[in-house]
């Protein structure tokens, strides 16, 4: 008892603000993001943050224990990317990663609609993972050569991690599509439901013109994305859906209706107890 008490009393207090994240992102040797670079970092950071939050909801609900662990690990990687990117975005106007994650309202988020698609059933989550991880793989592959050293460093680390995420999504796509009639039916429905939101990822907003070679032009990622997805869908004997294209608008702050609910859950604690640490 004495031992347990002494451990409990000697609190290990770690607040996010005390922890120095990558030195590339702040400090004397760090860089301050220009407003345009910060906006681009928000695009990527919000995509990662929203997807991480969604995947976290699977913990204790996935079809098997290994999947609880896998989806949680993928979410953790994405949260790491989000923290680096939001931290960098915040250097433009003195906001912290927590300010950006917890104290922005829906129209101030910049995530694309693909990442905001609800978890649905497990096949929907896998369909979304297939599209998201393939997109992130081709994006970070190019972004690691960015003229902006911070974006290059974050991408150079992330590219190795999203390759694992993609491997996971590909294996499950094949397994579900080639499994039972029911799993195949669900995988087909999921791809049908998810694919309309893919187009938005490859639109060049005016911001991209201003940033030049510091970033990757989204439209140039379409061909490598399609080339990476085609053999997976072919092996799974799935059609590339061409039903319709969703309007999108996440980069302008116009979001899929589910984002508000997600943010409410993600932000409620931080807003109820501003400044609290653990």
């Amino acid at each position, binding site marked *: 008892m004495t031992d347990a008490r002494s451990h409990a009393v*000697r609190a*290990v207090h770690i607040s996010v603000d005390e922890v120095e994240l990558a030195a590339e992102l702040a400090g004397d040797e760090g860089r301050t993001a220009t407003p345009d670079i910060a906006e681009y970092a928000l695009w990527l950071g919000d995509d990662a943050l929203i997807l991480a939050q969604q995947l976290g909801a699977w913990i204790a609900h996935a079809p098997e224990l290994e999947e609880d662990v896998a989806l949680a*690990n*993928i979410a*953790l*990687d994405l949260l790491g990317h989000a923290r*680096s990117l939001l931290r960098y975005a915040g250097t433009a106007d003195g906001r912290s990663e927590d300010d950006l994650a917890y104290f922005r309202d829906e129209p101030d988020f910049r995530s694309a609609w693909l990442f905001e698609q609800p978890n649905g059933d497990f096949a929907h989550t896998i369909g979304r993972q297939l599209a998201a991880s393939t997109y992130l793989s081709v994006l970070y592959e190019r972004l690691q050569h960015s003229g902006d050293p911070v974006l290059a460093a974050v991408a150079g*680390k992330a590219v190795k991690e999203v390759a694992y995420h993609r491997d996971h999504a590909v294996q499950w796509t094949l397994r579900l599509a080639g499994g039972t009639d029911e799993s195949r039916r669900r995988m087909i429905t999921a791809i049908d439901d998810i694919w309309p939101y893919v187009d938005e990822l490859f639109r060049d907003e005016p911001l991209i013109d201003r940033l030049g070679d510091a970033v990757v032009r989204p439209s140039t990622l379409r061909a490598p994305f399609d080339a990476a997805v085609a053999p997976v869908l072919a092996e799974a004997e799935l059609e590339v859906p061409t039903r319709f294209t969703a309007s999108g608008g996440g980069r302008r702050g116009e979001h899929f209706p589910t984002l508000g609910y997600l943010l409410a859950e993600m932000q409620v604690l931080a807003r109820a107890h501003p400044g609290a640490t653990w």
Partner: protein
Amino acid sequence: MVMRAVLPTRAEALEAVLGPAPVVVPADGTDLERARAAASTVCDPELPVLSIADLGVLRDVRIDEDVVTVVVTPTYSGCPMMQVIERDIARAVRAAGFADVHVRTELSPAWTTDWISAEGRRRLEEFGIAPPTGTRPLGPIQGGLHVRCPHCRSLNTREISHYGSTACKALYACRSCGEPFDFFKDH
């Protein structure tokens, strides 16, 4: 009134099981050698057999006008143990007699399992975690190397899940002895 016990943090729970992390204060050598040796004693709390030097997380130690700067790099972007590691480094280096300690995290160049030392690999296997098999191609033959069971040394093993108890590990099982084990995956 129900009294609820204060739950220990993960680091405290680990300390309760493993005992406090030893702070070895090297007695001699130059200031830089002593600072480096102190920083090198820190372990990843989730891999308590492996020092951050053996893990390849410790990248550099410098002293500039009495300020010790320790440079580390995370294994995975979201590794939650980096915060504990940074705290432990500052504590270890201060205990070695340096008042001003600054821990910097750098993302680039990105960490790879190739940076795990030979001693680190040996200790991992001894601890029951199969060490990474290497990310570099070893010759014209493509394909992954067999992962050796750390318990019975059989190469007849299979992957149960690509993702394991931490971001850096996958879950394997041995077909020979039947035991499950962690594999420190190539990265």
